[in-house]
């Protein structure tokens, strides 16, 4: 199906427009407020919907972390105002254990799925794929709209679980049964867990609808001349992300459905030989609690790359544009993305080294896990070479892309510790793990996302974000992120377990109370600065400096050939044709050569 057909549903328009494209207007249909801003089928509007919903979730999820950091940093103090906000969840101004675990669980779920998957992929896959591939819209705009509304529905259900009597789910974002299956084992596993599963099921549907769309758009709707090897790396990364999601999310859903059966239909997929205090022996026999972990991590590990790949893609693109240099080793970059995608499916059991997994099986997963470090190392060295002998402009997007590389190195290297079963048996479920994954997939993915937002905001809203606030945002966040998570490695090396409400009763772990206070304080400052970013975002939508040139960053890619504020359909008239790859910067004495410019016979080859 051609782009025109997708947009307008009448393919006869396509054949003739070459002759009289001046008369061809993009907007034929009248748009109401509802079709333009609410049930929009324009990929750009859907991207903004994902972004703003994701930002709302990020604020909620971040606020949760501030609340539980308050408990961790100041376990012996009371905060009466907490009771005003949280009611019985903070009796006497202290966060209860029940509330603490609910906060930790929701923080994880919200940030991993609703912010860094939905918010990140949803925003940039939607926004960039049609614009950078040269398509009028997604392959199926209607499915795309459904994808957002399933995401929104899932969000509403997840949010509503915070307000029920027995509280939201509180068994950790990984939701291991039997804890997540038995309401008698934990109050959060009652109605809260049903809502959690419902919300997650809707989320999975949303991400499948979105993912199928992204894949088919990238494969089928590239403009003339845009071969796969001419695609910008953002598109490659978003494409592999979608492939990962489509292949692994169904497995997660199947795991959840079995869990639902165990909860309500009396089956024993995950349950066996259980005696609950105050309830007695349960009838379930013959299930395996570990089965769920296999199903969960079969998504759970690719999920890490679902979060990380878009950030890698955007960082690659933004580094190249602002270094005014081609990305170094384009094919190696694509190849390493591909290798990561394949390996992502083969390493899930490294989360399960200490579950009693067969040691031989464990050793296979050690090998495969450490293999992933090879493509990751290639990417890091290629990024470094990209900025070597460059001419760097520190735009806010560039700063965040550089920060992304720094954090990816720091967090990636600690993965080599944890992927090695010998060390994992010591460090598993300690603060070392917290430090590792917050740096490598939490903060660094956020940096990728911020880089993307700062870089493409002019395309989204036709205005710039305020740079001064952006610089403050960048430096405080970078320094803060290291101050928060770097010392946590040491807590991990002391064996300090994660997910503890209070360490004061432990002779082995109580020596870090000053450090915890410090970390909590920094976390609050960093959170406040994120609020400043949110303010900058909404302020600049309306009051930001206006974009006056079509291509403000001097970029080669197609989205900058569209009008400053493109309508539905992206290009008035014809879709531009592509003649070259996306990275001709500083070639033959020219600052940049857009993808749309035909190859000059005298041009040097790369």
């Amino acid at each position, binding site marked *: 199906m051609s782009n025109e057909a997708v947009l307008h549903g009448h393919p006869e328009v396509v054949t003739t427009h070459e002759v009289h494209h001046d008369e061809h207007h993009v907007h034929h249909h009248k748009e109401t407020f509802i079709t333009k801003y609410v049930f929009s089928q324009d990929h750009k509007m859907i991207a903004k919907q994902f972004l703003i919903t994701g930002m709302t979730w990020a604020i909620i999820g971040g606020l949760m972390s501030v609340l539980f950091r308050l408990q961790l940093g100041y376990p012996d103090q009371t905060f009466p105002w907490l009771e005003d906000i949280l009611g019985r969840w903070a009796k006497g101004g202290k966060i209860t254990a029940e509330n603490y675990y609910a906060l930790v669980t929701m923080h994880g779920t919200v940030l991993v799925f609703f912010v860094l998957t939905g918010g990140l992929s949803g925003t940039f896959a939607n926004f960039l794929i049609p614009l950078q591939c040269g398509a009028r819209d997604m392959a199926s705009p209607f499915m795309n709209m459904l994808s957002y509304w399933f995401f929104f529905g899932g969000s509403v259900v997840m949010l509503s679980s915070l307000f029920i009597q027995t509280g939201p789910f509180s068994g950790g974002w990984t939701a291991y049964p039997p804890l997540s299956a038995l309401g008698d084992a934990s109050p959060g596993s009652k109605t809260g867990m049903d809502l959690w599963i419902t919300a997650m099921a809707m989320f999975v549907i949303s991400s499948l609808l979105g993912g199928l769309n992204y894949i088919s758009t990238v494969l089928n709707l590239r403009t003339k001349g845009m071969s796969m090897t001419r695609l910008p790396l953002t598109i490659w990364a978003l494409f592999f992300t979608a492939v990962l999601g489509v292949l692994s999310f169904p497995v997660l859903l199947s795991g959840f459905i079995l869990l639902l059966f165990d909860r309500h239909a009396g089956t024993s997929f995950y349950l066996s030989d259980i005696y609950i205090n105050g309830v007695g022996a349960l009838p379930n026999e013959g299930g395996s609690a570990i089965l769920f972990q296999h199903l969960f991590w079969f998504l759970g590990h690719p999920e890490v790359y679902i979060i990380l790949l878009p950030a890698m893609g955007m960082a690659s693109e933004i580094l190249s544009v602002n270094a005014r240099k081609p990305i170094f080793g384009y094919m190696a970059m694509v190849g390493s993305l591909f290798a990561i995608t394949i390996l992502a499916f083969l390493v899930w059991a490294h989360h399960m080294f200490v579950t009693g997994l067969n040691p031989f099986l464990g050793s296979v997963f050690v090998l495969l896990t450490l293999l992933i470090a090879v493509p990751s190392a290639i990417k890091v060295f290629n990024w470094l070479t990209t900025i070597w002998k460059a001419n760097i402009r520190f735009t806010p997007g560039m700063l965040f892309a550089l920060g992304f590389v720094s954090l990816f190195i720091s967090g990636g290297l600690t993965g080599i510790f944890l992927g090695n079963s010998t060390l994992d048996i010591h460090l598993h479920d300690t603060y070392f793990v917290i430090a590792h994954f917050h740096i490598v997939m939490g903060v660094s993915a956020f940096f990728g996302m911020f880089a993307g937002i700062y870089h493409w905001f002019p395309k989204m809203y036709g205005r710039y974000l*305020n740079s001064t606030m952006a610089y403050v945002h960048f*430096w405080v966040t970078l320094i803060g992120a290291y101050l928060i998570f770097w010392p946590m490695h040491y807590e991990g090396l002391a064996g300090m377990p994660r997910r503890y409400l209070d360490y004061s009763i432990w002779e082995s772990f109580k020596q870090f109370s000053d450090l915890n206070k410090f970390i909590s304080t920094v976390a609050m400052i960093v959170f406040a600065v994120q609020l400043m970013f949110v303010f900058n975002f909404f302020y600049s939508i309306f009051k930001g400096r206006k974009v006056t040139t079509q291509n403000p960053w001097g970029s080669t890619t197609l989205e900058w050939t569209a009008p400053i504020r493109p309508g539905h359909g992206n290009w008035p008239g014809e879709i531009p044709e592509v003649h070259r790859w996306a990275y001709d910067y500083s070639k033959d004495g020219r600052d940049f050569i857009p993808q749309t410019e035909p190859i000059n016979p005298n041009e040097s080859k790369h």
Partner: protein
Amino acid sequence: MTTTGIFLLAILALGFLITFQIAKASEYVSVLKGEKKAFEQSNKINGALMVVFLVLGLIGVFWCNKLLYGKTLLAHPSASDHGKNIDTMLYITIAITGIVFFVTQILLFWFAYKYQHSEKRKAFYFPHNNKLEILWTTVPAITLCILVGFGLMYWFRITGDAPANAMQVEITGKQFGWIYRYPGKDNTFGKKYYRMIDEGKNNQLGLTWIDSTITKRDNHNNPSGTVDIKADPASFDDIVTNEAMYLVKGEPVKLIINSRDVIHDVGLSHFRLKMDAVPGTPTTMWFTPLYTTAEMKEITKNPKFEYEISCDQMCGNGHYSMKGLIKVVTKEEFILWRAKQKPAYVTAFPDKDPANKLPAPAAADSTKATAGNAAKQPIAAAKP
């Protein structure tokens, strides 16, 4: 809200307001100065900050290490033989990743500073170079092979079979505490069945002490078949305690790990080990303690030192308080301690004198065989 709270919020609000005003002003200034000049200025500042960040960051890394190293486990020797291997592995990994960390971070921020925008410079068109790319594919691959090699060598040592003479101790997790069981004189753990668990009758593990017929119940509490349990004499001398796990210095011990309800994890940070406790699927882990608790008190210079067992797998609202204890003692102390322990059977049935018991033959497992048949039997029971 307290006054300090209000004060802090006020400071934050003020800081934000100032930043916002400066931010707005700088936009006007850039219009006045010309965008190019404003860009060059901010580019210089950010470039300089790159190097400042690098230098302060490196100092911070050393300072943080100096401050916190002593609080980690690395400041003292590992309390188990496996732990010594794990520490070696840790140092090898720290050395290799440390080099990579410093080299790449320094290059990253140094390049960012050095190649910041300048009118005079033209960026170097350098799209690819096969030699370089092959170099940094193979070098990491070889390095990682070294790490995998060492890792797996230690991993198989740690997860290999326990020595035949290893003492066996069973540890069972429950919400929120630990139950330890020793096999008693016969050196054989008696059979247990989770439906026999009865805290009121001092049978927290469900040991099969008496012949009994148990009615199974389905989810709606309707009876669904019965199970015949035969008493297992091997369970009569089993010692069950919640106090602490006593281990002997220098003697290998094999833990048999169980859970009664949800997944727990036996976290032995001083021994550098951990293993999940999974309901329905026993797991094992073995090691040799190297220092007694008393010796460790001296090594760590902490008179309150204890080998604590921390639950390392989220198990409910009391997770953070699920503490167990290991007391590593000398052989003599251990024999003394064990002599003082009464088998759980005797505690539950004080009238039975253990001295009159016959030596226990290993009973065949009757539980599983009958359970299967029982489920198929027609049930004539009425609803309760």
